[in-house]
């Protein structure tokens, strides 16, 4: 068993696991990681069963080990990791021992990273998930200074400490693919054109629920009275102010604002990893193209997990594999 005390915690640092699927009909948002690929990558790197991770925001986290020892992995974005004063590369495996102090701070890019222990974090669960839903407090609240984290069944996997993958591959590009609808016909044709041709910027209104984008104002043709309907992750809903809000992991399950488009699943986590001030160009694709993109993304992620699973491979081999994956990724993005 290992115990950690939180010495510093920025806002919106929460426990997340796979999320709570299947309860949207009761108003329960799925939650789960903002960047699902990074969350899974840390587990694969450690060879750990899928479980609870600490999702760290740009506000940063600092913990000290009170007792015990356990290996851990941090993935997601390009965050600055400092262990006992020594700077580690992002996307690293390391071991924490009694007295160790781990600091995670915003780095070159990325809004969220994941701290996964080689063991089982003791956390409350609700509806078969440990994911914190910020707002309802139904399963924990964001972490704060003084909280104690307990990890059971700790192990020190027989792995090389160090970087498991070069995160450059995952740096989000400004192009984000969308499918128009379901209410694009409520908007002026100029607005539908602007959405595809003009630049949008992520604003500071950015949390686990969604991010407000700023660009040309999107106008509806006439005032409408639309009954609330279910909304999914990636929806671009447009309230009266005309700025689209992209709904993210903790989105409400229903909404009464018209939705001009939806970000395809393959690009949702990339958008989540962007920062306030980053620019986006939307590219409209068909439903069929969105489905093909989901299948390709699944294949690429699968081979990627396979590569990082075996961290014992020689550096040369890992580089070769990472080039292979980059090749596939640049193929699909071109």
């Amino acid at each position, binding site marked *: 068993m290992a115990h950690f005390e939180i010495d510093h915690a920025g806002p919106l640092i929460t426990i997340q696991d796979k999320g709570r699927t299947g309860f949207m009909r009761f108003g329960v948002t799925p939650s789960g990681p903002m960047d699902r690929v990074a969350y899974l990558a840390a587990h694969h790197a450690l060879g750990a069963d899928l479980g609870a991770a600490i999702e760290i925001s740009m506000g940063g986290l600092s913990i000290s080990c009170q007792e015990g020892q356990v290996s851990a992995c941090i993935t997601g974005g390009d965050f600055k990791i400092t262990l006992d004063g020594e700077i580690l590369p992002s996307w690293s495996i390391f071991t924490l021992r009694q007295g160790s102090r781990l600091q995670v701070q915003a780095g070159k890019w990325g809004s969220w990273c994941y701290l996964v222990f080689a063991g089982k974090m003791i956390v409350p669960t609700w509806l078969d998930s440990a994911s914190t839903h910020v707002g309802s407090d139904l399963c924990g609240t964001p972490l704060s200074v003084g909280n104690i984290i307990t990890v059971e069944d700790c192990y020190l996997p027989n792995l090389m400490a160090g970087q498991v993958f070069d995160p450059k591959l995952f740096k989000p590009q400004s192009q984000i693919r969308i499918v128009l609808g379901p209410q694009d016909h409520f908007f002026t044709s100029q607005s539908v054109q602007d959405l595809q041709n003009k630049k949008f910027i992520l604003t500071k209104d950015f949390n686990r629920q969604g991010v407000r984008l700023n660009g040309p104002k999107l106008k509806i043709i006439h005032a409408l009275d639309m009954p609330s*309907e279910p909304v999914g992750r990636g929806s671009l809903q447009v309230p009266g102010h005309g700025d689209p809000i992209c709904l993210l992991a903790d989105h409400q399950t229903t909404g009464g604002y018209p939705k001009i488009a939806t970000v395809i699943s*393959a690009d949702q986590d990339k958008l989540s990893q962007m920062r306030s001030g980053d620019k986006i160009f939307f590219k409209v694709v068909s439903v069929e193209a969105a489905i093909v993109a989901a299948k390709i993304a699944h294949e690429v992620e699968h081979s990627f997990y396979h590569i990082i699973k075996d961290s014992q491979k020689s550096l040369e081999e890992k580089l070769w594999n990472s080039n292979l994956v980059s090749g596939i990724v640049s193929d699909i993005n071109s």
Partner: protein
Amino acid sequence: MNIYPQIKPIADIGLLIEFGQSIDISIHAQILAMDQAMQAASILGVIEMIPSYASLYVGYDPLTIIYEDLVLSLEVLISEIQKKQIKIQGEKNHWRIPVCYESKFSPDLEELADKLDLSTDAIVTSHSSAIYTVYMYGFAPGYAYLGGLPSKIQIPRKSIPIMGVKPKSVMVAGQQSLITTVTMPSGWWVIGKSGINPLNKGLEQPFMFGVGDTIKFEPVKECEFVRFVQG
């Protein structure tokens, strides 16, 4: 010409089957029928359905089911439910919910009475004599949207939401009423407090109401209410 139902894709994650564009019990009955038909069909690759006022959301896994196949299956089910007289299978519950409307628990009742030009008693009588239907869940876990609010006590929501509205608040806005389950901001008018929280986190089935259930509010005095809540 009836253009409904219409199937509208939502990127590669789901689709909406729209049965209309208004809040109407006959439209809602078709949604419940379709929801039940889909539950019975249990199509491989369908993750979940979410009934709402005028549409049914269907979430699916594009890696498991081909979109065109899903749409075909849905069209078959739609034509089946349209052939039959719509009859909702299974038990729909009727709930009687104790509500205390006394001033301690109804911070917005006086202002609402002013705005509607009614007495507070008239609002309470009207609110507690109607039979409500659970149309859908939304906004926050366990927030059941109840249709059937009498027209004379309908009012748009407040222009600015109030932070920290407590659980078990009984609220009204537009054509709806609602009992809150967790502390959340809300722009609805709080006119009473329920003796029961319809979300019980500890239960295996934590949500008290099913979509399609009916509800009546029973006014109780504060003294009875306290006894009820404690007992």
